[in-house]
């Protein structure tokens, strides 16, 4: 299939398999980790904010109690 005669040929890349696959592995790891972190950031911040609002509300309440 394609340019290569066999799957072994494809992995071997005419003796340059190490360089080619190392490059693709590094790019894959970098792009996927960046993507996952970005995707989680909105979710993580929603969680962070819900805690922040709860604490802010609690602070307001205790302050109101102190004043009275």
């Amino acid at each position: 299939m394609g340019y290569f005669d066999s799957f072994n040929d494809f992995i071997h890349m005419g003796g340059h398999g190490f360089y080619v696959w190392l490059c693709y592995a590094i790019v894959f790891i970098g792009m996927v980790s960046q993507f996952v972190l970005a995707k989680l950031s909105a979710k993580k911040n929603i969680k962070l904010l819900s805690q922040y609002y709860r604490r802010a509300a609690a602070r307001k309440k205790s302050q109101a109690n102190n004043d009275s």
Partner: protein
Amino acid sequence: MWNWFFQLASPKWFYTIARKVTPWLSVLMYSLMLAGLVLGLIFSPADYQQGNTVRIMYIHIPAAYMSMMIYVIMAVAGAIGLVWRMKMAHIVSVSCASIGAMFTALALLTGAIWGKPTWGTYWVWDARLTSELILLFLYLGFMALHSAYDDKKAADKASAVLALVGVVNIPIIHFSVEWWNTLHQGATLSKLEKPSMDTSMLWPLLIMIVAFKLYFVVTLFHKIRGEILLREKQASWVKKLVADSKQ
């Protein structure tokens, strides 16, 4: 006529639109990425001089291209934020930094690994490689400077100025292969000339470049949404969104 510009400046509007278009852009990105990989790794021929190491090109050139494009976007957004004091522009500028830094690191790493079998060395201190390394330091400096301030407004301003000053490095990277003697080859793609490459190699390269651009937009939109929530935490729509998401 300027309505869209002001709408774009509204974090709420941007958040809603980004959320709507991201899934569609993601599907397009995955398909193009898959097509580019299959064409580049399996169907394109080996180079008559370089052999199969030429396949590194399909990720090296897009990564290097993105590293420069993202920097320009980051600097222009920073400038808009400085001049018009637009909140969204600073959010875009700040969200660009880590993606751009990653692409710069990937361009340098894949270039070094490609250099070993073709040039016989991982690294030379020539103009192209050195100016690209400086680009990485500019990105890292931008991120470090921005995180050094407690006050977000001051951080936005300072890092936008740094980004603008660093823009001078972009034409240096681009023309380095013409201005100085270097091991690095000249531009492969040019808008004005006919490509010097066979179509069997040109197609996977062009597809990968578009796929990397889409990847950038999708990742940027995810980052921007996270950043908007944090910065707009006093806005009633964010409070409502957070309250609704808990149920």
